[in-house]
């Protein structure tokens, strides 16, 4: 098989990934994508022409050895492939599912210049699932213990990747998490149908097996301060608390009953399992047969709107003030949402929420927009069309326009530098903050970004922390 010529390889079409039928899946929370079979994975892996200089790797924020793992897949050595990926990525089953490969590795892939790129993400996912399902996640060898202790604050992808690297380097690692479960946005934000929680748990368990300690219910700043952690037990700290402070639109009626932030709506459903109420105690607005609108165009908006459809919403809309091309959500998510019957109201901006007279949401006043000149973000600026206002009746609204920075660490760590937006200021090369021994990375530094960028930051920090623990240089 491996003798196959480059030309023949190029002839193989990109293999589609089996998925649940849209008509069925819009009524359940089971995973949408079903993953490759062994045959499909091998066939897809053969499409990789094994470039001498694999440009795909340049697109990967953690530098997964893409060419090498794909070669192992083509040879049928799936466990070898898993080990290869895990040299650089501690959460492959997660990343294979939620990374925007289409704008990272796959966009660089040489095969993609003429046809469709190698489906790197789907292969990564297959390999990680194969290992977990067949032999369980295998853990790498650890370096001898150094006796140094590192505290990691926040258990999202940034914290987890940093923990994974540091424990392998021989340091003791304790992760502090404010919530009662480990995983950050992977647990409370991204829904079950896109990222089953069991998979996050399995990857977290693998870290536990390596010896990473996890402390839940620990809000750093309150339960312990950064200074106390440094003074009492730890030689270095990595702050990875994410971007958790939801923005609202700032329009009238936003505090009416029935208006949620995406964080609240998704946390109720994902973390607290409101979709299984009353077996689980936490409720969420009952959308059965109701009309709902989600404001925003990112992954969070797609997750919220598709969740509401699964909870039984009659009509579920995405309301976005620019056009579809400007939407930051992954193409795959938009495509899946459309298949599930989500309606897209593009170039539409909310002006105010309408009260039903009893404090509950009854509708939203909308205004049509048109695109003008590009703004500072490079995207064409939406301009209101005067006189286009109209009211649409809705029963529930979800605001998914992004997150600011949570103020708790800032308020309790006086000598840590923050910028005007509340993000921690770091040196990008090593994630060092203004405070000796304290590093930071992920969404708290960049503002809302991606899982893999957060993981990349965790990895950069782990290397710098390792160095700092050796030489104490700041």
């Amino acid at each position, binding site marked *: 098989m491996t003798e196959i010529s480059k030309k023949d390889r190029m002839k193989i079409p990109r293999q589609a990934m089996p998925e649940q039928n849209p008509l069925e899946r819009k009524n359940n929370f089971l995973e949408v994508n079903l993953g490759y079979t062994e045959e499909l994975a091998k066939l897809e892996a053969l499409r990789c022409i094994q470039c001498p200089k694999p440009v795909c790797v340049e697109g990967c924020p953690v530098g997964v050895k893409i060419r090498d793992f794909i070669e192992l897949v083509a040879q049928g050595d799936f466990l070898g492939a898993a080990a290869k990926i895990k040299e650089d990525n501690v959460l492959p089953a997660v990343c294979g599912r939620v990374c925007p490969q289409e704008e990272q590795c796959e966009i660089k892939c040489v095969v993609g210049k003429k046809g469709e790129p190698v489906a790197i993400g789907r292969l990564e996912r297959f390999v990680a699932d194969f290992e977990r399902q067949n032999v369980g996640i295998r853990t790498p060898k650890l370096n001898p213990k150094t006796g140094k202790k590192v505290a990691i604050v926040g258990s999202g992808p940034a914290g987890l990747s940093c923990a994974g690297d540091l424990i392998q380097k021989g340091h003791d690692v304790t992760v502090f998490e*404010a*919530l*009662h479960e480990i995983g950050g946005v992977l647990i409370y934000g991204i829904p079950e149908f896109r990222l089953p929680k069991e998979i996050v748990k399995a990857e977290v368990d693998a870290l536990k097996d390596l010896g990473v300690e996890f402390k*839940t*219910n*620990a*809000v750093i700043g*309150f*339960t*312990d301060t950064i200074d106390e952690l440094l003074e009492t037990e730890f030689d270095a700290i990595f702050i990875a608390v994410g971007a*958790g*402070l*939801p923005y*609202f639109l700032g329009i009238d009626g*936003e*505090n009416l*009953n*029935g208006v*949620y*932030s995406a*964080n*609240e709506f998704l*946390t*109720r459903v994902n973390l*607290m*399992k409101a979709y299984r*109420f*009353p*077996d*689980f*105690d*936490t*409720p969420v*607005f*009952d959308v059965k047969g109701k009309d709902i609108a989600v404001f925003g165009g990112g992954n969070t908006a797609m997750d919220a709107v598709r969740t509401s459809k699964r909870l039984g919403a009659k009509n579920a809309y995405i309301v976005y003030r620019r056009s579809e091309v400007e939407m930051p959500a992954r193409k795959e998510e938009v495509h899946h949402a459309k298949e599930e019957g989500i309606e897209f109201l593009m170039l539409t901006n909310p002006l105010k929420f309408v009260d039903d007279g*009893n*404090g*509950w949401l009854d509708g939203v006043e909308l205004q049509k927009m048109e695109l003008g000149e590009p703004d500072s973000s490079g995207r064409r600026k939406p301009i209101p069309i005067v006189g286009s206002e109209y009211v649409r009746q809705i029963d529930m609204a979800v605001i998914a326009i992004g997150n600011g920075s*949570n*103020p*708790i660490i800032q308020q309790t760590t006086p000598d840590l530098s923050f910028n005007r937006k509340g993000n921690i200021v770091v040196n990008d090369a090593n994630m060092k903050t203004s405070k000796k021994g304290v590093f930071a990375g992920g969404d708290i530094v960049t503002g809302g970004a991606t899982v893999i960028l957060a993981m990349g930051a965790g990895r950069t920090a782990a290397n710098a922390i390792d160095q700092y623990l050796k030489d104490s240089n700041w």
Partner: protein
Amino acid sequence: MYKIKHAEFLALDIKKFVIEAPKIAKKRKAGQFVIVRANDKGERIPLTIADSSIEDGTITIIIQGIGKTTKELNAMQTGDFFLDVVGPLGKASHIENFGTAVCIGGGVGTAIAFPTAVALKEAGNKTISIIGARTKDLVILEKELKEISDEVFVTTDDGSYGFHGFVTQKLKEIIDCGEKINFVLAIGPIPMMKAVAEVTRPFGIATVVSLNPVMVDGTGMCGGCRATVDNKTVFVCVDGPEFDAHKVDFNQLMTRNKMYNDKEKIALNHFECNYDIAYEKAKSEIYQ
């Protein structure tokens, strides 16, 4: 897991829990709260820390059994465990020597006002406490408040104990008698806090209330606890829970707190059908 070192009913449906949580005990200040989750299917609910002991490594919380979750919590006993207790959350009460301070607690709000009353007294205030309850059996912490207050008044709606009437009438009486009040803290049902705000407003007496919206995380991440204060949206869990009573939109808070009323009925029903044994046990304990 957080062990319940001691649990006892203080009054009908009002139960006191002393919980092992050494870190929180050491850190907490008056006015702060914890988020508690009883078990892995439970809701996260905010509960004010009523007291703590650094030596024993414990915090005290007082729970009124109203809905499913609080009734379920109140069915738990000495030796049981809460799955999650996180805190201390929220901002501490602003304490200074104002001069004369009146602390008003309505119902279980008395437990929430208690630690702040202690702190106000320690700061040198002349401290007057008013405990309001529906009826005599529901009066809590009278003895404890007497120990730390210069004066304590009890009011009951039905006149079965103390002053017959509402806390606001008592407060008005104190003001009318010429007592120069510099600060009022009122914690209890929303209508009570709203009414207290209206009593003190014309006199310009600084008045603080502790808000009790529905919460999820308690760390500022979800925005579910938002309220309107001074025409601006606040997140009560991180910006509060205490606010200037004269600036709070109480009507909105009341409406928002009713958001899950229908669900609450379903949950309670579900609970009482499934857990009637635990529930009955809790009830029988009350009447012992």
